[in-house]
């Protein structure tokens, strides 16, 4: 392998039911930074069916080229169909770097591809940089349940691949005046390998929200305790225009659904305000929220680790303070 043959920063554009996922735009933003350092291009890998019309959006968010793989086989995500398409694209175009969202799709596809390509893959990166001297990709990720950070490199193989969790990178402002090239790509499918059939896709709850998109999160932990007390958090969140999230303890206890969980095994969030109520702040939880702009914590235990990351800490009972705060804010915000 001659490394010089591999160029440019590629981003796997994840779409579901034809809708481009936010993480794809976040990755384009990061890819733009990396490509600018390298003096290379940002290339979007855009598989799906009847999706061509959206290619220009990817250019507006930072792509120089968009390779559209449009096929009825790619309408829904299925591992082998997507692996064949993207594998053939990688062989044909020889990217230096390929980034994927660390979603249930990206974390299914990327390892399959890394094994097919016999190259390295680094999961759930929180930081991507180009090394000054060798121009290699430096991929930093949490390990040991968020207790340790490791910077990983893949210097002898190409492409360098990584998955990045949603909400970690920031998308660029949309710039509709950006110019780029749209390139169609037609893979040859080996249908004899298709062994998985999608029977149905079920959305668990139409009213679901994505907590990584929320600007304000009112988050509850063991100290909040029960559903009735979570209703108080809900009232506060409504008053202040936010959403309710939760620590793992409350998800395991069945009080809150998994999609509201913040932390190492939940979601990474960086809202403008993170109000932690009755959350002690296990390292796994802190890993998912410490990048928040403003952190306010209410906890009965003055030694709780959450106070180490909080901008403002209140030692007290969240279940008492939250309703009072809601009431007060109702007055303040009326003015």
């Amino acid at each position, binding site marked *: 392998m001659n490394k010089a043959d591999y160029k440019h920063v590629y981003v796997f554009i994840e779409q579901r039911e034809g809708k481009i996922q936010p993480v794809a735009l976040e990755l384009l933003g990061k890819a733009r930074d990396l490509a600018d350092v390298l003096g290379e291009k940002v290339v979007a890998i855009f598989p799906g069916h009847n999706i061509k019309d959206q290619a220009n959006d990817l250019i507006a968010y930072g792509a120089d080229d968009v390779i559209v793989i449009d096929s009825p086989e790619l309408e829904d995500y299925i591992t082998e169909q997507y692996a064949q398409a993207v594998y053939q694209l990688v062989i044909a175009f020889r990217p230096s770097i390929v980034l994927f969202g660390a979603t249930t799709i990206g974390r299914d596809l990327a390892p399959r591809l890394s094994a097919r390509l016999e190259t390295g893959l680094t999961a759930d990166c929180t930081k991507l940089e180009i090394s000054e001297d060798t121009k290699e990709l430096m991929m930093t990720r949490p390990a040991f349940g968020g*207790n340790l950070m490791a910077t990983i490199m893949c210097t002898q193989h190409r492409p360098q691949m990584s998955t990045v969790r949603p909400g970690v990178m920031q998308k660029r402002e949309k710039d509709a005046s950006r110019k780029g090239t749209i390139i169609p790509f037609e893979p040859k499918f080996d249908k004899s390998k298709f062994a998985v059939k999608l029977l149905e896709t079920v959305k668990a709850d139409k009213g679901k929200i994505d907590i990584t998109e929320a600007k304000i999160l009112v988050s509850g932990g063991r100290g909040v305790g029960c559903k009735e007390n979570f209703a108080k958090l809900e009232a506060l969140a409504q008053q202040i225009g936010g959403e309710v999230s939760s620590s793992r303890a409350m998800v395991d206890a069945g009080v809150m659904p998994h999609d509201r969980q913040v932390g190492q095994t939940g979601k990474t969030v960086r809202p403008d305000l993170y109000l932690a109520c009755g959350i002690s702040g296990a390292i796994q939880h802190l890993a998912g929220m410490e990048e928040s702009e403003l952190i306010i914590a209410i906890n009965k235990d003055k030694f709780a680790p959450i106070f180490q990351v909080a901008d403002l800490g209140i030692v007290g009972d969240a279940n008492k303070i939250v309703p009072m*705060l809601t009431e007060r804010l109702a007055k303040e915000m009326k003015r």
Partner: protein
Amino acid sequence: MKIVVCIKQVPDTTEIKINPVTGTLIRDGVPSIMNPDDKGGLELALELKDKYGAHVTVITMGPPQAELILREAYAMGADRAILLTSRAFGGADTLATSHTIAAALKNLEYDLIITGRQAIDGDTAQVGPQIAEHLGLPQVSYVAGFDVKDGKYIVKKETEDGYQMLEVSSPALMTVLASGYKARYMNVAGIVDAYDREIDIWGDDKVDLPAEKLGLKGSPTRVNKAFTKGIKAAGEVHEVDPEQAVNLIVSKLKEKFII
């Protein structure tokens, strides 16, 4: 039906703490456990044993002391246990690990291979799909439901906003979520029995791969450096009555233009 479950011994990362003075990991006294998602996968296999009389083999790659989780698997109801261990496997990243395990699995007959979604020490979720690729098997990850119908597997895959139902031909590989399968307890007779049962010890002679695919040599990724995150400078902490607490929060929100 023959099932092989791949399990891993991991440090219980919820028990790891950081020394606040030096900023280093305190690993002493941290217990080793069977990785939770793998245990969920074993539970799925044992449910299939209860329902269809499946034969369940567990295999782990690791140091000799990883034998402990194989004993635990016996006590839960596994039929055969294999410890895959050799110095040649040391330092492996996910790709080298998956090559090693896939090569070992080629010695076994299987209709279904089960792994956990991810291990709590690395959290990569990569080894399962990589094994599937090396063995040329279809995969489903994030599995929270599974049954057999007319010789096909009917699988429930959890997604961010719900789930999918998939039909998969056999043989196949599933990566299972602990939340989908609450593991049974070891039974008492099983615990006593588990210490008398044979464990097959397999070395690199059972892994038909060139040496450059194994261990550190076979690993395309390298850890360049590892560090603990610096502790962010703590803000102000106040022990006040609820009334004052509300005042403090409101003025902070105003100061930061949240309200």
